[in-house]
């Protein structure tokens, strides 16, 4: 598995306040990692620092060996894509137009999407089962459909590293599982590197290859559910969640409060 994203001693925060300190992390091709932690542990700060929305105080971020720490937005967007917790309203924008916004980093400033790209955008919607919505107003979709459209836009952007900040936060139980399943499948099939923040450790255990536990702005532990025993998982997760129990169901694990 070759290396896609590498963070070296990343420290970031807002103004003078450091929220995450000295983060070292490597994510490989086709690997989906979850960033777990309680509120205020620095999950969102770390994600925003990687995608350049807040400046890094020190440290470096490399994608496929290329330094992406201090580059302008246009260049970074070719290497790193981002799905925010809450997306724009996009009232009066059709689903197909919303997806085509993803081509922006690959187009010249004044260039319009090519006929090929327009066709590909349609195919992306088809792949996610959204082709019937192509001509509809984005603002009129359900939350689950909207998040799927944003995922299609991210696929159009086609960056090797995908960052996601609680993309499931507005979704119901079924949509939540559906979108995470899609994200997992895409990252494995297209050999991208994914880093996703989640609130629910059970979703992380169910869908992610590796769990990265963040506590007080530093990495408190890492865990690969497929290779760990039940006891190892319990011990690791209890570092942030306290007194917990882990149950097994057909090779999958779930966490409960004790």
């Amino acid at each position, binding site marked *: 598995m070759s290396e896609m994203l590498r963070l070296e001693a990343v420290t970031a925060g807002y103004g003078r306040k450091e929220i995450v300190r000295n983060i070292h992390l490597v994510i490989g091709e086709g690997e989906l990692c979850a960033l777990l932690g309680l509120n205020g542990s620095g999950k969102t700060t770390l994600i925003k620092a990687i995608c350049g929305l807040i400046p890094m105080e020190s440290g470096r971020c490399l994608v496929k060996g290329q330094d992406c720490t201090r580059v302008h937005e246009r260049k970074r967007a070719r290497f*790193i894509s981002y799905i925010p917790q*809450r997306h724009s309203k996009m009232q009066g924008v059709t689903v197909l137009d919303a997806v085509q916004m993803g081509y922006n980093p690959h187009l010249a400033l004044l260039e319009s999407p090519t006929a090929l790209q327009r066709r590909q955008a349609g195919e992306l919607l088809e792949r996610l089962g959204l082709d019937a919505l192509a001509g509809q107003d984005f603002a009129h979709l359900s939350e689950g459909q909207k998040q799927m459209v944003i995922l299609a836009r991210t696929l159009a952007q086609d960056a090797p590293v995908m960052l996601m900040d609680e993309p499931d936060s507005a979704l119901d139980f079924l949509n939540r599982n559906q979108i995470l399943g899609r994200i997992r499948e895409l990252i494995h099939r297209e050999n991208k590197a994914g880093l996703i923040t989640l609130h629910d450790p059970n979703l992380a255990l169910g869908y992610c290859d590796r769990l990265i536990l963040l506590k007080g702005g530093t990495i408190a532990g890492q865990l690969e559910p497929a290779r760990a025993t039940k006891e190892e998982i319990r011990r690791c997760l209890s570092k942030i969640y306290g007194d917990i129990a882990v149950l097994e169901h057909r090779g999958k694990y779930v966490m409960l409060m004790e």
Partner: protein
Amino acid sequence: MMSDRRRKQTFCAVSALVAAAFAVSVCVGKYPLSLMEIWTILTGGEIAEIKRSVFYTLRLPRTWMALLAGVGLGMAGAVYQIIFKNPLAAPDIIGVANGANLGAAVAIVLFGYNTLFTAASAFVGGMLVVMLVIALVRATGNPSTTTYILGGIILKAVSEACIMLLKFFADPERQLAAIEYWSMGSLGNVTAFKLLVILPFFLVGLTGLVLMRRQVALLGLEEEESRTLGVRVGLIRVTVLGFSTLLIASVICLTGLISFVGLIAPHIARLILKRTSFAACILASLAGAFILLVADCLARSIHSAEIPISILTTFIGVPCLIYFMRSRKAGRI
């Protein structure tokens, strides 16, 4: 939801309305011309010299100006409502109109009422105030849309205070009246020469916005999203604001302030198309042109003296805005 065919029909219908308003506008006024007479003039037939002169030196430049002003205000208004993510953003949101007003007032007080000089000074004033807003935003180090709006508020207030100062010291008989009249807007002073002078600025502004249309749509997203989609937000926003300021300044430096068109035309376009795409910006400019052509016809025909254009655009605009508020309540755009 509108089909492509319906949308094309809508564009044809609105363009036809604009063409009709254009034709009416070249006919009506103190010296009415009939369409037959205009046809004779255009084909170079025999006609009284006075009619030919009215057509070429008064009617045609003025009608073109109404068309250009409507297109410019409608387009800039639609673009501003997208990039400021605010349906109440008007083209003067970052101070171009107040700057132009100040420039005009300075010229009137210092150099008397020379219309060419006033126009030049108004253009410089409008551009200068927007540049100051941009410099102010740069200085704060937080180039978000909110900072632009705050910067606009600050410089609008400063320009307003300077205008009051000038009015206070102005000669009430001639200068004060001229300043007031300028701020109500009129197309009465437009000549073919002035029109040709502002045309290059107008076209640069308009073409710039048309070319940047994809970036305008991306600026309409939340800032985090547009940045991670590869938009160099700081740079692109200043460029788009620059083009739209050029467009607006080139119009209002000749016409004076024209209220409501830049605010209303984009709403009309969105109500019709149910879209905020660039097609809606184009429809907004056609709607703006229609409103201004109609308003200008009324301005020079309902009374023996010319009525300031802002009075008419406001009376036309307000019912539209009320209709818009009602349709918003009903959950449409």
